């Protein structure tokens, strides 16, 4: 499964970056490919490329606030969760998404 994600939290200092790290670690351990952009107090980092978005099977928005540039994902399958879900149970989140995608296809 190929994943692109965006993380953002209220203050933009801690949870944004924890959620990104957890999603990437979980994807690695499940042998999935993940690119995750952070929208925090330090601005936008690891910005997703058009190619990454095109190639993705799923878009995960792990955010507690509205994100910038959601229109980039128009027409793609998008899953929205709070940052805490990505931080606390990243592997089961990815597994659940994978199962649902398999059923849908």
């Amino acid at each position: 499964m190929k994943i692109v994600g965006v993380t953002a939290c209220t203050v933009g200092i801690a949870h944004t970056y924890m959620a990104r790290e957890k999603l990437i670690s979980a994807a690695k351990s499940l042998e999935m490919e993940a690119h995750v952009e952070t929208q925090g107090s330090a601005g936008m980092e690891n910005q997703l490329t058009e190619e990454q978005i095109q190639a993705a099977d799923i878009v995960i928005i792990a955010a507690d606030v509205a994100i910038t540039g959601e229109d980039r994902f128009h027409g793609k399958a998008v899953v929205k969760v709070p940052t805490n879900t990505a931080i606390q149970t990243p592997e089961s989140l990815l597994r659940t998404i994978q199962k649902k995608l398999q059923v849908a296809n």
Partner: protein
Amino acid sequence: MNDLIKDNINLHANVKTRKEALYQMSVMLEKNDVISDKDAFYAAVLDREAIGPTGMENGIAIPHGESDVVKDAAIAVFKTNQDLKWDSLDGKPIKLIFMLVVPTQHRDVNHLKILSHLSAALTHKDVQQRLLTENNVIDFKKILEKSGGM
């Protein structure tokens, strides 16, 4: 080394509650001239606490405060002598607190990046374990440095 902790660290903090820890950390920050008003900063930290849990996993909490009484971005660390009751993701009590201190204006993007790297590093179990068992300040900072958290 980009040490944002400096002297704002106590690995044997004698506090009994979450609020006492947050307040004593604010006192330490004012004493070390990182913030100009401990009560105003403490209020900012409590405002953030009210939004949602800052207790993460395996005994580590990351409270944070954003305020114009902050002179420079910093990190304050408390390791407590006893477990603290704290709303956390895994329901476990808290023993190690990283308080992220951020000014409202004149922010240095590099400092913010250091805080973000620290947050990311703290999600790794091996880093958590080593920090929880390290009682020497210099070695504690070395663990952070090596894990990319500094």
